């Protein structure tokens, strides 16, 4: 291939450089009239997706009882080990958490606890404004986490579906539950 080294070709290269720079200048200047993409946050709330994962709450079932059965699945699913809890049992036989503690200074809001929860008790909300002056204030105890409502699954009540027998519902009486099989019986 013949190499182009003529004056005309060089002139063309120089012109090309300048032309592209001028085009750039004009295009940048035209952005004077475009709208800024900035969301001025404290005054203007950014759009949050429906599945945005923010502050973690513990919900209650439709009867107002705590949903959490202290199964510890959320704590074992947690990649940062920020959940700690202790099981207790009341006189009716329901399990619940004696204490339930989430350290939000470690939480990464991955949502694995919500996925692991068998009773829809632990849920992530759209609230992300958790800033504190004191690191210790980011440790949330059970009374800080519990909310009054059922959250994302308004009609779900774990103890009516299935699970261990509690007073008021015998084993096998749940709506999603078959009668227990008597393994010692030969009847079909």
């Amino acid at each position, binding site marked *: 291939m013949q190499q182009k080294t003529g004056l005309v070709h060089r002139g063309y290269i120089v012109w090309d450089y300048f032309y592209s*720079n001028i085009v750039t*200048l004009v295009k940048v*200047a035209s*952005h*004077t009239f475009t*709208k*800024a*993409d*900035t969301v*001025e946050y404290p005054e203007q709330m950014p759009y949050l997706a429906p599945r945005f994962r923010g502050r973690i709450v513990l919900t209650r079932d439709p009867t107002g009882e705590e949903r959490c059965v202290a199964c510890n699945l959320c704590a074992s699913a947690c990649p940062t080990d920020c959940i700690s809890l202790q099981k207790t049992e009341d006189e009716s036989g329901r399990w619940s958490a004696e204490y339930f503690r989430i350290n939000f200074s470690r939480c990464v809001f991955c949502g694995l606890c919500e996925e692991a929860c068998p009773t829809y008790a632990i849920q992530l909300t759209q609230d992300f404004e958790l800033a504190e002056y004191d690191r210790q204030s980011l440790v949330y105890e059970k009374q800080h986490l519990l909310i009054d409502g059922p959250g994302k699954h308004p009609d779900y009540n774990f103890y009516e579906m299935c699970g261990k027998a509690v007073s008021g519902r015998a084993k096998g009486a749940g709506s999603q539950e078959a009668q227990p099989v008597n393994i010692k019986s030969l009847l079909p």
Partner: protein
Amino acid sequence: MDPLVNSLLNVVLILLCVVFGAALLTWLERRLLGIWQDRYGPNRVGPFGTLQIVADMIKLLMKQDWVPPFADRLVFIVAPAFAMFVVVAAFAVIPMAPGVGIVDLNIGLLFFLAMTSLGVYAVMFGAYASDNKYAMLGGLRAAAQMVSYEVFMGLSLMGVVMLAGTFNLRELVLAQVDGWFIGPQIIGFFIFFMAGIAESHRTPFDLPEAEHELTAGFHTEYSGMKFAMFFIGEYVSVLMSAAMITVLFFGGWLGPHWLPPLAWFLLKTITLVLLMILIRGSLPRPRYDQLMAFGWKFMLPLSLLNLVITGALILI
């Protein structure tokens, strides 16, 4: 008015306006860059964010005024002051309007060129005194850039001087009553504009402080008010380049009578400053050898060509 009082008033007011204007320019630049990048820029402190400069100033004053133990202490301290001094001194010769301006030197243009050339010493001193490899590379680049750009900066102005027949800036403005020199000296304007940007070390010619390669280049080791001196010095030199282009190519304070002369001067200067900020906001920084090649192989021949053509036309 008593001439002494008048000139003192001129000195104080112009100095204040220049320094304050340069500080305001930091806000203006950030706002404009924001707008051109579809952001808002600083808009929180005060009306439209104008008090941002006060906030920045407080921050810089509060900072620890640190001299590195390995630095050459005296030179390290003198360099930023020198950077500020030369650009402010160069402002002395710029005629802003009839009766506004500090001195009326017969060799005003030469004084301006001399002062801008001295500006590079501030950078080199600062870089040398820092005893830091980034700073040294920045200083090295500043020196080489100065050598290649100073040459055609002077040459590009010779066309204007030939047309007006004087080095006196006030007479240069008055020589443009029949038509601004931007018309016959469009090439000279283009070259001087480039050189002006290179002189004030601004993008795309900000190789001495190229923050992507050299952290902060020659002022890597500087902090607090010493850094601010370099910073404000850069903005004063932007103002100075714009004011100089106005005087030399856009007829200084000349303009229709529905605005006072000083307003015309400021209007033209601010427009040029906006253009410089636009260039900073859009053009990429060339590689170092490309910058030198552009200076020596393109700009220098172009300025010589401009000189020859202007001279030939004057003789005809």
